[in-house]
């Protein structure tokens, strides 16, 4: 039975037709405020500094001001580095200041009010949005001169599109669902063997049976797995002359529900004197010669826990694919989103209601399939100073999983004090020594 909250939420669906129509129109309404994209020319004044909320890794390049004390200081932040360390070494030339930030594009919210004060350029790469922010000297402006895609993602998409259109034009009986799925999966495996895709694409609900003779094929589930772009920019003084130029290389590897984004600044130079547009273009062209090698050398090892969990999920999906299961991954029953779990539990549903497989995944991308689960062990808390409960209370302190490969992993509760003096708890996986697991 619905509670009061649910009743109120559901009431919105029962509103009058004209109100629902108004709601739908509002849903489609464009933003009123102008937003700059990579396709537009962007002017950025030196007075605008961004303190955009960082949802991913941020690398800043310090602005060399040895010869020009009027140039502003940079924001020196200690951050994790997704790209090669060479990018952070002291550059041989003076760099116009360009900051690259990786945000999530799964929502429209860029997440920071201060972005409204500044015009920045955003590049969308599937689930991620990459912001390029320029900090120039007074009177200078930054312009994006080019943004182009390097890899052949369209070719992969077109092949899948062609196959799907062929399937849709077929006459088939109600039992053709399995045949259709096998055809699609065979094509996916062919693409994998040819190296055109690197990972299994999201396979669940590939085909939904609508009637005895009709099927809905979810075309939007098939996407390329690797994207790479190059974004070029110039810096102009107040006279419109080019005083700096550079190029940024972006690459995104598809995960299950996000991207792994890596970036590298191919080059960024402040010229000793203004140069022509042609000379700036020649400088940028020279930077591009290295782009393919830079992309090939990018390190896509997981650097965040989320990336590790997503990599593990892909491995698990591949495994289940091999057994012909229909994959509907149910991410993580009681460990998703909360930061104090240092592992996650993933459930894969099969076709039948009782077909389920459970896996444990770790932030480094490793994983194991669970064969036995002890459940939680509860212990009464004897710590008089405990801040996690009031009066007499219990903590779930342990849980043990036996994996199909023979390993045993236990979950242990740990309490620690952070830098603010606040007590926090976390649940960490601990592997039993191999002798005990055997």
């Amino acid at each position, binding site marked *: *039975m619905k509670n*009061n*909250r*649910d*009743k*109120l*939420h*559901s*009431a*919105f*669906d*029962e*509103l*009058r*037709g*004209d*109100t*629902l*129509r*108004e*709601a*739908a*129109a*509002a*849903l*489609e*309404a*464009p*933003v*009123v*405020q102008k937003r700059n994209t990579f396709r537009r020319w962007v002017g950025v004044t030196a007075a605008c500094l961004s303190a955009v909320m960082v949802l991913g890794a941020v690398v800043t390049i310090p602005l060399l001001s040895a010869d020009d004390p009027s140039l502003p200081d940079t924001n020196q932040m200690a951050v994790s580095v997704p790209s090669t360390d060479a990018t952070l070494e002291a550059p041989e030339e003076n760099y116009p200041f360009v900051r690259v930030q990786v945000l999530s594009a*799964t*929502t*429209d*919210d*860029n997440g920071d009010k201060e972005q409204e004060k500044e015009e920045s350029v955003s590049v969308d790469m599937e*689930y991620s949005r990459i912001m390029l922010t320029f900090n120039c000297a007074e009177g200078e402006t930054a312009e994006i001169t080019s943004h182009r895609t390097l890899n052949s993602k369209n070719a992969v998409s077109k092949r899948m599109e062609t196959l799907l259109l062929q399937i849709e034009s077929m006459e088939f009986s109600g039992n053709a669902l399995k045949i259709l799925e096998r055809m699609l999966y065979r094509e996916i495996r062919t693409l994998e063997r040819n190296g055109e895709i690197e990972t299994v694409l*999201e396979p*669940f*609900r590939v085909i939904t049976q*609508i*009637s005895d003779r*009709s099927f*809905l094929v*979810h*075309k*939007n589930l098939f996407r390329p797995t690797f994207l790479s772009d190059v974004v070029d920019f110039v810096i102009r003084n107040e006279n419109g002359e080019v005083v700096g130029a550079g190029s940024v290389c972006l690459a995104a590897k598809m995960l299950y*529900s*996000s991207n792994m984004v890596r970036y590298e600044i191919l080059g960024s130079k402040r010229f000793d004197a203004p140069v022509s547009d042609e000379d700036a273009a020649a400088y940028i062209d020279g930077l591009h010669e290295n782009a393919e090698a830079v992309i090939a050398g990018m390190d896509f090892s997981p650097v965040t826990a989320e990336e590790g969990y997503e990599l593990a999920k892909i491995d698990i999906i591949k495994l289940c694919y091999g057994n012909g299961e229909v994959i*509907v*991954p*149910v*991410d993580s*029953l*009681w*460990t998703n*989103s*909360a930061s*104090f*779990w240092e592992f996650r539990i993933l459930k894969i549903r099969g076709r039948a209601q009782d077909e389920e497989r459970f896996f444990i995944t770790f932030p480094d991308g490793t994983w194991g399939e669970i064969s036995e689960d002890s459940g939680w062990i509860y212990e009464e808390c004897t710590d008089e100073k405990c801040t996690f409960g009031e009066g007499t209370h219990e903590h779930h302190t342990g849980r043990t999983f036996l994996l199909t490969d023979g390993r045993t992993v236990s979950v242990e509760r740990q309490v620690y004090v952070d830098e603010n003096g606040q007590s926090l708890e976390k649940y960490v996986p601990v592997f039993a020594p191999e002798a005990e697991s055997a």
Partner: protein
Amino acid sequence: MPYSNEEALLDISIRNQLLHRNEAALSLVQAHWGKLLQGLAYRITGSLADAEECVNDALMDLWQHPPTDPDLPVLAYISTLVRRRALDKLRYRRAQRRAQDALVCPLDELDECLSDPEGQGEADASAIRDALQAFLDDLDEGNRKIFLLRYYAVMSNRDVALRCGIGERAVEMRLNRMRKRLRSVLHEHGIYL
């Protein structure tokens, strides 16, 4: 509400194809509004996988129960289907969740309009709907748009502000006043939830 020729033609095309059991109608819906619908589901559920599942299920619902009201645009109809599926998914997840609930949904703000959100009051669904409709009818167009974007489309305050051309703080203040007003309207209709 103005409806462009292009939108009207699309609507007619989809309805005709549904009527003649041509599944290309679903492909059309997906192509034109798939991203928008998935965004709506994602804002409610907070999970991309759940959002995709909700949109898929809503397409199935659309196929099995095509819209019959000629004055209700297909987008409005399927938005309702997606929203309903997403709310069901959200309730299911919350019931299943054992760890601390870190999910904060804009819909949680509506708890301020209720005395006992978890309780099961006697008011029936039609009475609540009528009260909500009366509250919305009383609002001017601008405020109604803000309220629907926040609690129907489940958008962030920032996105609401961007679509209405006002500041985020102004959105927060208006929503705060409107929630208090909604609570009063519910009481005026004898609904104590």
